[in-house]
């Protein structure tokens, strides 16, 4: 490694001010710090530091996402095989079908997003920030498998520029970048982003008879009255199928089991806030119980049991990976409970009572992103008042 380091150090001056590739300084710096942890030592204050840095933090989130990601690829293959009546269900066959189906999306998200990050970092003279390492994998995972890459590119560009960079970059955005991308796709291209065909990759083949590519929540939203939730081949979905994620949907978020594995990693490393997740699940369960008690054919989703509500759609994924984004969530501990609870409750309300939107988790998180600073404001103000009261009592 010493040789590599020497080699890179020898070309370094060309990327510095006045060098031949001055304009690529941020990019060079990004790769340099990726390869070699900076040797910078502390200049003021404490002399030693915890080993955790923002690169490690983001990598841990990506690792936590891997089970969902790998399962999602396999499930894309499985749904495809079921839809076209392919009987070859070997693991690798299904996995690689899904892998090739989603790879262009992943590449698109990373290339467009990181490209913008690099340019902005260069213009501002910043180091490249790692936030998009997570967003870049999250974005394809919460999109339908058949999302055209150009739409994804437009949406990613919009989200990175208008939801993040205009506010100052990672750490300053108030909306979750991945969700803004998803919302942009949902509202800008509504017809392409819903319906029977976007959630299942058919490839060149024709679908079998009885095929339905709609997501479980999509089916319910458009049904009249109490309906059964069906898989792609038209057979009913069991609770186990829902928990494992064997149904069509945005490809990375169907498996509650894999989300739980990711959750375990996030909680063990202390990166995600358990407060948000616990209160989010409590909020969703309470709301589902309420909705289920007053179930009505007018709103068919209300017939889902609370457990089904937790397993289906993007709720579990959103509460574990989206709501816990530290930058856009509440930053005070008390605020986190309120924030999580409201996300859970609002997600289920939208899901149940707004048939126009089959899934409410995305909108619930975005809505609460907007309210997070207000919640924190109130919590911090309570602290201020406590301090003021101390003086008043004394006098």
């Amino acid at each position: 490694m010493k040789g590599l380091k020497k080699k890179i150090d020898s070309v370094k001056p060309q990327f510095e001010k006045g060098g031949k590739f001055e304009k690529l300084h941020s990019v060079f710096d990004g790769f340099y710090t990726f390869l070699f942890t900076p040797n910078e030592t502390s200049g003021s204050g404490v002399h030693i530091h915890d080993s955790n840095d923002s690169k490690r933090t983001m990598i841990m989130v990506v690792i936590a996402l891997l089970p969902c990601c790998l399962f999602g690829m396999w499930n894309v293959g499985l749904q495809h095989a079921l839809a076209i009546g392919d009987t070859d269900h070997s693991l690798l066959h299904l996995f690689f079908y899904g892998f090739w189906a989603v790879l262009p999306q992943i590449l698109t998200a990373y290339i467009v997003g990181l490209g913008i990050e690099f340019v902005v970092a260069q213009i501002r003279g910043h180091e490249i920030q790692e936030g998009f390492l997570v967003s870049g994998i999250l974005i394809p995972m919460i999109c339908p498998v058949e999302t055209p890459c150009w739409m994804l590119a437009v949406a990613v560009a919009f989200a990175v520029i208008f939801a993040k960079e205009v506010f100052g970059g990672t750490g300053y955005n108030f909306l979750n970048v991945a969700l803004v991308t998803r919302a942009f796709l949902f509202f800008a291209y509504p017809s392409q982003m819903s319906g029977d065909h976007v959630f299942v990759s058919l490839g060149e083949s024709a679908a079998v008879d009885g095929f339905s590519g709609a997501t479980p929540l999509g089916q319910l939203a458009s049904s009249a009255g109490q309906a059964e939730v069906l898989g792609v081949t038209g057979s009913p979905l069991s609770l186990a199928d829902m928990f494992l994620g064997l149904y069509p949907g945005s490809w990375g978020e169907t498996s509650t089991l894999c989300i739980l594995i990711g959750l375990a990693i996030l909680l063990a490393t202390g990166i995600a806030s358990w407060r948000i997740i616990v209160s989010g699940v409590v909020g969703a369960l309470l709301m589902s119980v309420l909705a289920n008690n007053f179930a009505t054919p007018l709103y068919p989703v209300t017939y889902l049991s609370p457990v089904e509500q937790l397993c289906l759609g993007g709720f579990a994924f959103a509460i574990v990976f989206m709501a816990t984004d530290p930058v856009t969530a509440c930053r005070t501990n008390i605020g986190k409970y309120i924030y999580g609870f409201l996300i859970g409750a609002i997600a289920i309300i939208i899901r149940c009572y707004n048939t126009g939107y089959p899934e409410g988790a995305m909108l619930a998180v975005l809505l609460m992103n907007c309210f997070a600073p207000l919640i924190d404001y109130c919590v911090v103000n309570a602290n201020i008042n406590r301090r003021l009261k101390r003086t008043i009592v004394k006098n």
Partner: protein
Amino acid sequence: MAEIIRIKKGLDIPLSGKPSSEVKADNKTTLFAICPDDFPGPVWKAVVKPGDSVAAGDPLLKDKAYGKILLVSPVSGTVTEVKRGERRHIDYISIIKQQDDSNAENRPKASSPEQIRQAMLESGLWAMMRQRPYDIVPDPEVAPRDIFVTSFDSAPLAPEMLDAENTKWLEKGLRALAKLTTGKVFLGVKAGSSISSQAATVYEFEGPHPAGNVGTQIAAIKPVNKGETVWTLDAVTAAKIGKLCEEGKLDFSVSVALTGPLVKNPHIVSTFAGAALSGLLDGQLKSDSDIRIISGNVLTGIKTSKDGFLHYPYRQITVIQEGNHADEFMGWASVSPMKYSVKRSFPAFLRGLSKPFDFDARIKGGHRAMILSGEYDKVFPFDIYPEYLLKAIIAGDIDRMEKLGIYEVAPEDFALPEFVDTSKIELQKIVREGLDNLRKELS
């Protein structure tokens, strides 16, 4: 029985190089120095010039505003240098010791409040106290609401604060201090300690660092409000005040722990305040290159070198690897069990996070905006939202700083948050600048 207060938020950083209780006397050191920057607040003026001979306890510097607060020579000898930096700022005044009488005796005994104040101001012991707000040398014109004394240091590798000699004088010192306030003197002791006091109200503190920080103790006992001033000091200074007032003896001897992963046999050395480090460290280090010598502990100490001096509070020296040639390949992907993190994002927790680690001085990452939330709160035992206070300081919003509790804090209270910070922000520097700006604006 003293009331026991449990500090839950905090962290004991497992740095290797804990000192043994062995005490060696330092007879070699002849060069000593007083660094006025160790005593923030006043503008210091030199009252000696190179070549002057001084006795132990004679003034070297005095404050510009009142001309009452003195910094004194710890030894008898000749002033060798008044080292100035930019804009004639005094870096240090060094004295070469010529006589062996570093106990300045025969100073007037003090029993009335006015005598005690006078004795403290003239002996340099006044400058060893701090006041909150602002964490500076106390303003002699302002009477304190209360006085807080801590009798233990919980920082990484910190030695026992009180030796037998100082313990003997502590009560006398507390009694003298009690005469200087209409409020109370509070003494914070480690849980299970045998220290008791008639003159002060004793609280026992249990839990991780910063339980021994006087700021933590104030927050738990009686926080500072706007418009109030409290004094803080350590028990060693209190004991010296006791000895001075009772017997007229000014004692400059100090026990310094040589600590840290690069010290061969971490132990305690008895010497005098401001000793040159070259003699103390001679033959004690495992390596001579790529090292960082810190006068103090790793959280709040002052970076110095082998040519440097012991800085206030004259208690500890820590030597660690500098590490600026580490060239760690893809450190973010490391699975080394030797990389300490409270986050468990490194496998070190499998090895046991309480086993000693060899830290180096690298910041181990890049500077970022605040990203993770709640990191600081876990190691910050105050009823304050540190993140919001820091943001108010950065924004220069004085009204909000006041509301969020800036009067209650000192930079050292932010040392642990700075250590755990994923975004590697220099929090203590921000707080110091915030306090200085606030003082300038409000004076």
